């Protein structure tokens, strides 16, 4: 599995990677610091497309929601999971309408975070089979 983590905090990206690895997720990780970098990493994957993308909402240059909308213009399949402090219902609805496959609110319980990522990955694998 290849996971792209898009978050403007390097420490947060590291924390997510560590939490996933500690939780038994075997993956190759890519990183991006904002939506613009995230889109570039998504497009320029060097022949190995990402199997799951974790996206923060509030980031400089391009927010996560706009990045998700850009991806969904041409790709309905790559699983996109929002990981954000935005916890209000209207925000979640907005993200669902944009085409996310999962929504995780920061701060998160590490086990719940890992569980959600595994759940989305498994659902995608099942659809592809």
């Amino acid at each position: 599995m290849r996971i792209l983590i898009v978050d403007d905090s390097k420490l947060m990206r590291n924390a997510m990677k560590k939490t996933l690895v500690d939780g038994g997720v075997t993956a190759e990780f890519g990183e991006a610091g904002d939506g613009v970098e995230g889109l570039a990493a998504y497009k320029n994957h060097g022949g190995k497309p990402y199997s799951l993308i974790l996206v923060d909402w509030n980031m400089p240059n391009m927010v996560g929601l706009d990045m998700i909308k850009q991806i969904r213009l041409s790709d309905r399949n790559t699983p996109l999971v929002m990981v954000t402090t935005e916890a209000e219902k209207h925000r979640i609805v907005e993200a669902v309408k944009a085409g996310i496959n999962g929504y995780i609110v920061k701060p998160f319980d590490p086990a719940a975070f890992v569980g959600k990522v595994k759940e989305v990955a498994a659902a995608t694998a099942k659809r592809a089979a």
Partner: protein
Amino acid sequence: MSETATANPILDKNVIVPFGHSVVECFKKMIGVEIKIGRPKLRPDNKATYDVSGIVGYSGDLVGYVVLSLPLETASKLVDKFAGYHVDPDSGDFTDGIGEFSNWVVGGAKANLGGVISMSCPAVVIGTGHKIAHLSDVPCITLPCSSEQGEFCVEVNVKRTVK
């Protein structure tokens, strides 16, 4: 002289309480640090309480800003705990950590403040005695926090734009 929440009716508990809950939950869940919340006070001037400020602005149905204010030593211990290694306080990773803490606390509170509110990306200021101008028509409220890593506080200077 600062005043306490019970002594001053202009301290709106519906605005302050979500920040107390948020700071406790954020630090416990994300880095396993227990936080105790003290009695809110009015901040007497615009001088930052401590050396390190993580500042996040609100706009929409609530406007103003919130500051996570920490002594450098406490900030350093908390960032080290989050990173899992020692982070040089002069490095970008240090400001990154403080910005992320501010984001968690302010974002976590936002969900319980009601209305439609947007928040800015965090800005971090480091320096003893720096000043942060606050909205002149509403009080700036300081919420003292203590942890094994030291004391710090959350400063809340916001007002509702809709009733």
